[in-house]
């Protein structure tokens, strides 16, 4: 086994792990005052890992990808693209965090550390070519996430969110492990190519159960219906920057991981898992849309919105084609910008005393008290609803295009008709901000770092985003090609 090559191919993870360990030492000696520097260094580490990953993605010498550590880990364009999205989301979340905690004394250097270690885990998840690697990566990112969810120690809701996330996450891990053991039992291996080969001839009932359990465990991680119940509670309770993180980076990782395992390990049994994915997709779209209507807390509403979006992404997976996978990645990229933007906008809403404003009713008339913030948030909402000319439409467009090309016209028609229900509550936010009389609650000033992240997201989401369709499409196609024809 060529360790040098393996270490090189896992470069981003190795680099991030080492950076994380160094940061741990810095944090241990520096104590709380070092929080700010640790954050800056963590952002730098993520940028470094991103640069390594980008080099793998762009350099033609790596276009075929490569296996590391005897097939436990696979470096390819698919993983690299997912990792870039994860790092970008993590950087965005880290940038907005310190100022959020400024008022209290809760911000600690552990926070950026946990984000870095979560990023390592997520990188492993999307690059795993073996069920063991997958599980280790998943647990690594999950453990970091549990701690992050309860990071606001003095806030009861945050502690509750952390506990709920932990208990339900452990349950999901159990289900996943059970599925993995069944798959291993019937395939005789945990490596994706070996599972694919073993399942080539057909599936026994036991193996099918294995697939169902694996997908159920993964559905929890991507908060697809019917395993979505934790999402609104955790999103509401966790501190807003943490929610921003949860809605973006781990979601990309979990979806990319699901895509890889479905298309690679179970790639020749598409018909077996397709109906599960179709059900989860439609149910997520519907539950996400209907559940959001009655919400009065904007973070809960965005939680349902993320469930809704997962449904659309799963339609791309249901297509089971290269075009579908590419569409998923395009959607994910746009989704990261939209979620990051909307959560940062929520994060910026503070009352005169500097407290967070989370009630939707308090956002009334925001367009007159804070027009720029209202404009950006309205753009995010309409984009999430998929109304052209905002860029969110493009994500839905490619996903449905892939579904139609894969002859899933009925699925596409139902899915897109259900998206109209979702449009209702996005419109409600716009209505409250633009049509209602000002409630004069949101008056606090926002930090430059928040504005910067929001502005970048707003530019991506604006019609200018369409200029990126070509490069984005080329990248996503290359990533999808690496996956679907692998093994």
């Amino acid at each position, binding site marked *: 086994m060529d360790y040098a090559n393996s270490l090189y191919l896992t470069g981003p993870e190795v680099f991030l792990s080492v950076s994380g360990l160094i940061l741990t030492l810095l944090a241990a000696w520096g104590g709380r005052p070092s929080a700010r520097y640790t954050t800056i260094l963590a952002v730098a580490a993520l940028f470094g890992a991103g640069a390594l990953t980008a080099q793998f993605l762009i350099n033609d010498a790596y276009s075929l990808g490569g296996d590391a550590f005897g097939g436990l880990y696979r470096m390819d364009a698919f993983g690299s693209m997912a990792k870039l999205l994860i790092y970008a989301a993590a950087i965005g979340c880290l940038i907005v965090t310190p100022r959020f905690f400024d008022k209290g004394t809760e911000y600690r250097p552990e926070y950026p550390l946990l984000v870095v270690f979560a990023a390592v885990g997520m990188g492993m998840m999307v690059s795993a070519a073996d069920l063991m690697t997958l599980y280790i990566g998943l647990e690594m990112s999950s453990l970091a996430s549990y701690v992050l969810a309860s990071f606001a120690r003095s806030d009861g809701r945050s502690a509750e969110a952390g506990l709920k996330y932990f208990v339900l996450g452990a349950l999901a891990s159990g289900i996943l492990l059970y599925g993995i053991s069944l798959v291993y039992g019937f395939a005789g291996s945990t490596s994706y190519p070996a599972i694919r080969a073993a399942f080539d001839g057909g599936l026994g009932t036991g193996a099918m159960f294995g697939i169902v359990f694996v997908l159920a465990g993964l559905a929890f991680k991507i908060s697809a219906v019917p395993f979505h119940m934790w999402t609104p509670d955790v999103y509401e309770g966790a501190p807003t920057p943490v929610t921003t993180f949860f809605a973006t980076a781990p979601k990309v990782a979990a979806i990319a991981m699901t895509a890889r395992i479905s298309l690679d390990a179970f790639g020749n049994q598409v018909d077996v898992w397709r109906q599960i994915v179709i059900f989860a997709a439609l149910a997520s779209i519907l539950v996400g849309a209907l559940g959001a209507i009655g919400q009065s807390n904007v973070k809960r509403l965005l939680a349902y919105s993320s469930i809704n979006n997962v449904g659309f992404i799963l339609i791309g997976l249901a297509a089971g084609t290269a075009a579908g996978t590419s569409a998923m990645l395009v959607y994910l990229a746009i989704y990261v910008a939209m979620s990051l933007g909307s959560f940062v906008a929520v994060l910026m809403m503070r009352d005169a005393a500097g407290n967070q404003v989370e009630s939707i009713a308090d956002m009334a008339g925001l367009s007159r008290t804070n027009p720029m913030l209202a404009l950006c948030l309205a753009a995010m909402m309409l984009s999430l609803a998929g109304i*052209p000319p905002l860029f969110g439409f493009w994500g839905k467009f490619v996903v449905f*295009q892939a579904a139609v090309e894969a002859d899933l016209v009925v699925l596409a028609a139902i899915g897109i008709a259900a998206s109209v229900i979702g449009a209702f509550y996005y419109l409600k936010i716009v*209505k409250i901000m633009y049509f209602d009389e000002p409630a004069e609650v949101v008056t606090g000033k926002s930090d430059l770092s928040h504005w910067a992240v929001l502005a970048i997201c707003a530019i991506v989401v604006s019609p200018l985003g369409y200029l990126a369709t070509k490069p984005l499409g080329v990248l996503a196609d290359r990533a999808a090609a690496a996956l679907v024809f692998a093994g």
Partner: protein
Amino acid sequence: MGGFPILSAMLLVPLVAAMACLLVRAGTARSIALVATLLNLALGIALWANYDIGGAQWQFTERHEIFQGFSYALGIDGIALLLIVLSVFLMPICILASWESIQKRVGEYMAAFLIMELLMIGVFAAQDMFLFYIFFEAGLIPMYLIIGIWGGANRIYASYKFFLYTLLGSVLMLIAMLWMVNASGTTDIPTLMNYDFPVKAQTWLWLAFFASFAVKMPMWPVHTWLPDAHVQAPTAGSVILAGVLLKMGGYGFIRFSLPMFPEASAQLMWVIFVLSMAAVVITSLIALVQHDMKKLIAYSSVAHMAIVTVGLFSFNVQGLEGSMIVMLSHGLVSGALFLCVGVIYDRLHTREIDRYGGLSINMPHYALLFMLFTMASVGLPGTSGFVGEFLSLAGIYKVSTTVTLVCTTGIILGAAYMLYLYRRVAFGEQKNADAAAMSDLNLREWLMLGPIAAAVLWMGVYPESFLAPMRKDIAALDARLSRAAPSGDAHLVAGEPKAEAANAMPEGVGEHEATAEGAH
């Protein structure tokens, strides 16, 4: 125009102006909007002047491959040309109409209107199906904001209804478009207009497009968003809604449904006929009992749009030409009627018909113009309404005499409710002192209504100016449809033309004018 990208320029002017409006104060925003719309009007006139009648089918084409999956392709034929000219003609009038009545958030208001103008021109000029869809759908956002922010008391409900109704209609069309592109391998509208889809698939595709266009049109029974939206929208919003947005449905039928799915169109013609007949009679009767002026005109719009749809699905040249003229005429006339309502609404702040009366005494100029537009709406010869309705009904007569009979009834009912409205508002005694004290039109209102009056008369007296640019395109569409055209029940037989006119005197002296002068 030597390669000058005039269509892109027409899109760019309102975009730049809209950005500018967001940043400046109210007074400046008004001026910027007016200048920008006038500039676009000038470009529109240049477009018309440079349009080569009888030349290439698609002119002023531009194409840039800057997107994945679709291209930035613009180009117009005669049909699109006239609708673009209608849009740019109405825009400055809308800005003038909002000059004084809009006092809050003026910059945003003007920006929304300018974006609206951009999107309308984009819809008519797009030559790529997905580009069309983006423009088509994007119009929802500014219109939602216009109704919701500057609308009347019940604006929230109306804005939701408008948005969700039209969105549901359009998303199914998107799926149909994706299927078509997947099957044909192109997004180019001119190519698709000559692409033969399998007849079985056509039915489904037609229905999906129908779902979108029927809501936009709007056809009975999915028209209910329109009266709500109209009543709650500010005057200029109503003008744009009635004048141009409703035409997107008709344009959709003429650009997509008919040429792309001729067989399905013939097969499902009866759906259109039944719904249109129902619309003409039912909405006319509803209009008859309205107390709100805007609502009355909104219902009359539904009835007029039904004449458009029957004309479109008559599969012959008269019907198609007639429908186009009805669309243009209705754009002008209903726009003008909403402006007339706006004029007196600005003075008395009510649209209740009973609050007015005898306006011809204190507002004679207003009463005169209002009379002209009422007559044009009724379809009096000499006005634009007559030309369109006559041609449409002549076209549909060749297909179904029954449909013609029912639709003509609608025109009689139309005369009833419009004349009844006019009598209650302009004639009779001056019941209310405040209504009696209202002043006549000021210069700004003359500038709004005068040009429309001139255009209405022009179209009524010499429709050839408007028919000529689209003659070739209509003929091409008719040729495309001929293979599916139904035989009809009229069985018209062309007779031998007589050597001399029917009213010729034996000696050829004392020439008698055969015009309908007694109609007044």
